[in-house]
């Protein structure tokens, strides 16, 4: 984008980079903070509609647009309580630990081809790793609250998240294997074109593992029916029983942030990221070489595409939450260890074999070879990670052939 | 086996346990000597025909007139009457047992009258007897864990006694 600003708009270089950075920062911040507000409002409206009522209607004119803002103001005004026996420092720190973990993972999340905070060539790995850190905030909150209910919540969360990281990791590895890269941009670009190119429809194994991923993702962000850590009918409010006001809202933002994040991950890994079900851009003739403005437009389009998919994921999570009862902790663990993990492992092996023996897919014409559409984009403009994957793929092949046939 | 024959069986099995009867009342009842109540209950539950496997209700009725003027006119003696409502799920018939206790043990106000607990016979009697102890003031001998159940642990007096007076003050809360 910086190049676009420099060459087309004609800004000086440092200003162009700064503007790019600001836009990226605003994007990331908006998704997690503004997004949380929107999602909270949406959750209330959706819950309301699902439950045959209206949800918020008055605040901010029609539809209760400003309900979450009003709630936020109320939370700001609320007294910050801390239990007497609490470990003050840890109690205060815990919400921020949770929030930061959820927030940091957004750095590596691509919104469109180069709309990304920091393109890492281990992007997927990074996001999964950082998301796993959220559990620390919860454990600390549970421990520091000096409340038995909170401690129960923290222990459940620890057990649950640590266990679900295993199948989640396996699910994530499948698209990584298919794309041959852990770079999320590369993974998404390899699925460009029609929706038949999505890894979701790559082969039966990926289709199954997508649903395993959905299950594990819902569990790892603690949403119903896996919201054991805050199970309100058992543990009062679980790990955040003792929290109020702004600190409590940080947990909330972290939850919605992670929800969005895992949904966006699902979109990037299995549903083509910013590449739509229909390649609108290439149908319009806006492909590589039609100029920077066109490129920029295509990327904006892609960003909305990804946001749309991720939002859809979040909405599905809400739908599930307002429909299903909660599992019991032993059932949650059983689901993970007895169902998700073996299924994920089997599907992983299956996808691997499929890739080995049927690399072209069952119907060769339907499944266009990856990267054919916008080959040039993989090399992309600037940035030290950007040029690498394609280049190193080539080199790897070269080295292997040289070593295998000396 | 129903009717007077049932009563005869009971008297034959536990001679001397039945001290009175009223078969013409709305709910016909038999009166049992208080100290035999547990034995009678056990027999009714385990050996009688039909068996009374369910205890529905335990009640204590305080017969006492605190107003001395009215007390002179009443025909009955001051006493505590224990009432047990039994039920047979198989035969679907009921039985009412009554037992008469003095209002205070040895007529010393403050000392609770005593009756054997039937919690060992029907487990539901556990809570019902606790309630009677709590609000009517009857001591159940052999009850596994006798404590206040409805009133606070440190409540004084037995509210369903007719001569009960609400305390003036409970932990700084005005009573009357």
């Amino acid at each position: 984008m910086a190049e676009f600003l420099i060459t087309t708009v004609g800004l000086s270089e440092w200003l162009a980079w700064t503007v790019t950075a600001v836009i990226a920062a605003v994007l990331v911040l908006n998704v997690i903070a503004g997004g949380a507000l929107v999602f909270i409002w949406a959750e209330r409206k959706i819950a309301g509609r699902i439950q045959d009522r209206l949800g918020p209607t008055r605040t901010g004119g029609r539809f209760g647009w400003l309900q979450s803002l009003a709630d936020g103001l109320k939370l700001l005004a609320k007294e910050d309580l801390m239990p007497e026996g609490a470990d003050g420092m840890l109690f205060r720190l815990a919400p921020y630990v949770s929030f930061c973990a959820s927030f940091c993972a957004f750095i590596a999340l691509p919104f469109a081809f180069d709309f990304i905070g920091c393109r890492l060539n281990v992007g997927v790995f990074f996001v999964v790793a950082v998301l796993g850190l959220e559990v620390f905030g919860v454990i600390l909150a549970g421990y520091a609250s000096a409340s038995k209910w909170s401690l129960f919540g923290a222990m459940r969360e620890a057990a649950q998240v640590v266990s679900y990281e295993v199948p989640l990791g396996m699910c994530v590895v499948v698209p990584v294997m298919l794309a041959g890269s852990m770079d999320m941009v590369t993974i998404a670009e390899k699925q460009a074109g029609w929706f038949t190119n999505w890894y979701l429809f790559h082969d039966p194994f990926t289709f199954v593992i997508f649903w395993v991923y959905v299950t594990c993702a819902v569990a790892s962000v603690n949403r119903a029916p896996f919201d054991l850590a805050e199970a309100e009918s058992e543990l009062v409010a679980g790990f955040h029983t003792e929290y109020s006001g702004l600190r409590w809202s940080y947990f909330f933002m972290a939850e919605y942030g992670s929800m969005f994040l895992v949904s966006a991950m699902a979109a990037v890994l299995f549903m083509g990221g910013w590449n739509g079900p229909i390649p609108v851009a290439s149908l319009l003739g806006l492909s590589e070489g039609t100029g920077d403005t066109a490129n920029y437009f295509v990327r904006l389009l892609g960003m909305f595409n990804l946001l749309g998919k991720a939002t859809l994921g979040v909405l599905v999570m809400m739908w599930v939450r307002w429909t299903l009862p909660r599992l019991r902790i032993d059932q949650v663990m059983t689901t993970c260890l007895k169902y998700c993990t073996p299924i994920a492992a089997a599907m992983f092996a299956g996808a691997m074999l499929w890739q080995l023996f049927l690399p072209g897919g069952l119907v060769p014409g339907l499944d266009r070879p990856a990267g054919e559409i916008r080959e040039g984009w993989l090399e992309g403009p600037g940035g030290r990670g950007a040029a690498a994957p394609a280049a190193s793929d080539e080199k790897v092949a070269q080295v292997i052939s040289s070593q295998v046939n000396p | 086996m129903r009717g007077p024959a049932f009563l005869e069986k009971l008297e034959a099995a536990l001679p001397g346990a039945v001290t009175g009867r009223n078969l013409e009342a709305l709910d016909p009842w038999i009166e049992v000597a208080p100290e035999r109540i547990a034995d009678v209950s056990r027999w009714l539950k385990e050996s009688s025909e039909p068996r009374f496997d369910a205890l529905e209700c335990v009640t204590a009725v305080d017969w006492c007139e605190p107003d001395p003027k009215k007390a002179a006119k009443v025909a009955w003696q001051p006493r505590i009457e224990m009432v047990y409502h039994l039920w047979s799920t198989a035969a679907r018939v009921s039985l009412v047992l009554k037992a008469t206790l003095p209002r205070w043990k040895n007529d010393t106000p403050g000392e609770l009258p005593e009756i054997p607990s039937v919690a060992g016979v029907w487990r539901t009697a556990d809570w019902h007897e606790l309630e009677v102890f709590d609000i009517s003031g009857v001591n159940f001998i052999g009850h596994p864990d006798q404590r206040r159940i409805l009133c606070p642990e440190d409540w004084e007096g037995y509210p369903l006694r007719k001569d009960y007076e609400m305390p003036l003050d409970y932990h700084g809360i005005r009573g009357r």
Partner: protein
Amino acid sequence: MAQLIDDDPRIIEFDVRTDEMLVNMGPQHPSTHGVLRLVLRTDGEVVSEVEPHIGYLHRCAEKIGENLTHRQWIPYTDRMDYLAAMNMNLGWALAVEKLMKYEVSEKARHLRVLIAELNRIASHLVGMGAYGLDLGTFSPFLYAFREREKILDLFEEACGARLTYSYITVGGLTADLPPGWLQKCEAFLDQFEPIIKEYHALLTTNAIFVKRTANIGVMSRELAIEYGCSGPVLRGSGVDQDMRRDGEAIYTAMYDGYAFEVAVMKDGHYPRDHEYPPVPADAVLGDCWHRFFVRMLEVVQSMDLVRQAIDRYSACKGTIGEPLKLTEKMPAGDAYLETEAPKGQMGFYLVSDGSAIPWRVRARSSSFSNLAVAPELCRGCLIADVPAIVGSLDIVMGEIDR
């Protein structure tokens, strides 16, 4: 004894040295249905002992009853099981009528059946919805309340109140139905009938719901009788007992000519079970699922009874008659009567010395006995099972503490 310890699945073995911990569930807790306090002794997630503490809602109703005339006490019965106040009114009114050997008019009798069964539906809807809430699903609760509101609307039109009705009273009812009420009631039943399928889809047959309730808190029929359980809790354990059929003459006479089958599993089948979802494979008679299912069946059963009552009521000519005077004297003596309230057998015991004011009033509440069994059921379960078990007993604290 040693054999018992080794074989009992409720004995938990620990790998790590752990300490037991006492946790207070309630009196302020989202799933204790009012102000119930459960003291849990837990080891991690495993509950080894539960001790209910009651009395937070004690309002001395029995003492108050010794100072009011029989009809004046009717509003206090409203506040016992406030979710089924009509049935409470009915229980007391019938107990007094039994003592006075009074018989209400035919029309009043059918109206009583109509109202009481309608309130049974309302009560079971709350029990069902709140049970979903206990298991962490919110929507069925609101679906249940939506329908209950319609019943409350009907009640409001009939007697002016939405919760504490005091409608059924000694000697009849306070007022006859307003014109057009029956049509509204029938319209409600017609639109309510298909909704029950929705409840079955959301709860009864939901895989997670079944996982959470089947084989949890299993109560044998012997245990249920031993603890004096009643109502759906007793029938959920397979005991075929319903006071509407098995009770005393004065109560069962009310249902004379009504056709209904007691909702209990006989020989592995519920009555008309082809119309309902099948019993899940892992459900055991006497577990939470069966208690819940019996309630669902009774909703349908009550709808049937309401329909029958509407027919009979509208066939009756004349008025429902006047209730007794407030100061009508009762004969000396005592009377005990149990009626089948939605939560179980509600017994009223009444001792009279010949005046209009009872000498002693005793309310034997079903929830009181039903809750007493909770410690037995919760032994060795997980924390999450405690709300599931207590919720399946469907208790109302107003009735327990009185």
